[in-house]
């Protein structure tokens, strides 16, 4: 039957993926010499801390303006939501949807997904383990896309730089947003998906073997 490396006294190196015999709790990989544990230490606490940080940063990231537009002495600042509604008003629906997905759905989905994963590990839920692994895989991969609006603002500010006539400046909201994205990336990095499977009850065969 399928057995985990941990239960057999092995651990796979997180860097080079070589399977090592675990002589101690902390083991140096025989191939790449990286020191590692069979499971990421304090994974749940770290993931929790980064996820909460991301959630907190999500508030100023949306309340403060992302960019400031100066035209002929007139100043106009816009938050992410205002930027999206501006697109809707001129009829650029595809772009509005892309920005909305990148700036709202992805970060919030990631934060909710991480909370679900943390909950499942803590409460030893054993249902749909495959689906949970899949959820983690998605959470890990979609993260970078939430930087989209920050990059848009950066490029806009750099191009529209015509002095008094018209110029766009980056505003503080973009900094909070970038921090928020980094926090979600760190959260996904700290999570150890193998913890989900560690609470799996033994199958009949495994009980007999023991």
């Amino acid at each position, binding site marked *: 039957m*399928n057995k985990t490396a941990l239960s057999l006294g*092995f651990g796979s190196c997180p860097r080079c993926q070589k399977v090592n015999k675990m002589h101690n709790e902390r083991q140096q990989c025989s191939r790449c010499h990286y020191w590692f544990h069979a499971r990421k230490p304090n994974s749940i606490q770290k993931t929790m801390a980064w996820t909460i940080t991301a959630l907190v940063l999500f508030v100023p990231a949306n309340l403060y303006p992302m960019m400031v537009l100066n035209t002929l002495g007139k100043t106009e600042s816009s938050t992410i939501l205002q930027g999206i509604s501006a697109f809707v008003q*001129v009829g650029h629906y595809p772009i509005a949807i892309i920005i909305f997905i990148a700036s709202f759905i992805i970060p919030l989905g990631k934060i909710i997904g991480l909370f679900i994963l943390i909950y499942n590990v803590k409460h030893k839920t054993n249902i749909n383990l495959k689906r949970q692994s899949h959820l983690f895989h998605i959470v890990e991969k979609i993260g*970078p*896309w939430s*930087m989209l609006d920050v990059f848009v603002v950066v490029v806009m500010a750099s191009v529209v730089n015509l002095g008094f006539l018209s110029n766009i400046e980056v505003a503080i909201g973009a900094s909070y947003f970038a921090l928020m994205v980094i926090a979600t990336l760190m959260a996904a990095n700290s999570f150890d998906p193998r913890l989900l*499977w560690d609470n799996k009850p033994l199958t009949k065969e495994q009980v007999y073997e023991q």
Partner: protein
Amino acid sequence: MQVNTDTLIACQLCDTLVNIPQISSGEKAICPCCQSVLYVPKKHSLERTQAISLAGLLLLLPATQLPLMGIYAAGKYHQTSLLECITLLTNNGFYLIAFCVLIFTIVVPAVRLFTAFYLTYCLQRNINKPFLMVFFRSYHLLDNWAMIHVFFLGVIVSLYKLVDIADVAIGAGIASLVMLLMCSTMLSVCIDYRYLWTELERSHE
């Protein structure tokens, strides 16, 4: 009891330990427990990885230096490149964002390309240096931090935004950026992680 761990592989998602199945290129090794992909062998991995990473490295300079786009407004023309974006941000005091853009769009992709190129170069010529391992160790870690694709989409979105405001001209930087993006994507597709690590281990013995 001595176990030969070279023939074992553990699933990264569920930690199931299995013997590495004998599979030929074009096939995938699947985890029996969670059905995630364990290992995909690649054809001509060494040569392809080297060619793609070299091309990517050569593209780094034009992609960051050449103008991405410019606008005409009231008789004035202003254009910008990726590097100018970053210098403007630092000039205006947005160090955090400048740092993020620099790391995610230039440093991380550059380190990945350089690592892949230098590693394959050394393996081909049987040069072994202990720090190659440290280099290659960082490669996997940086996987989720490369954001050229996101930056490219950002450029496209801002083009859309600017077309409404002013006359926009597309620069040669965009073409270089697209090619760099293709190289970086193809690198992830072509690199055979497991093969390279095995070769690296063998060359150190």
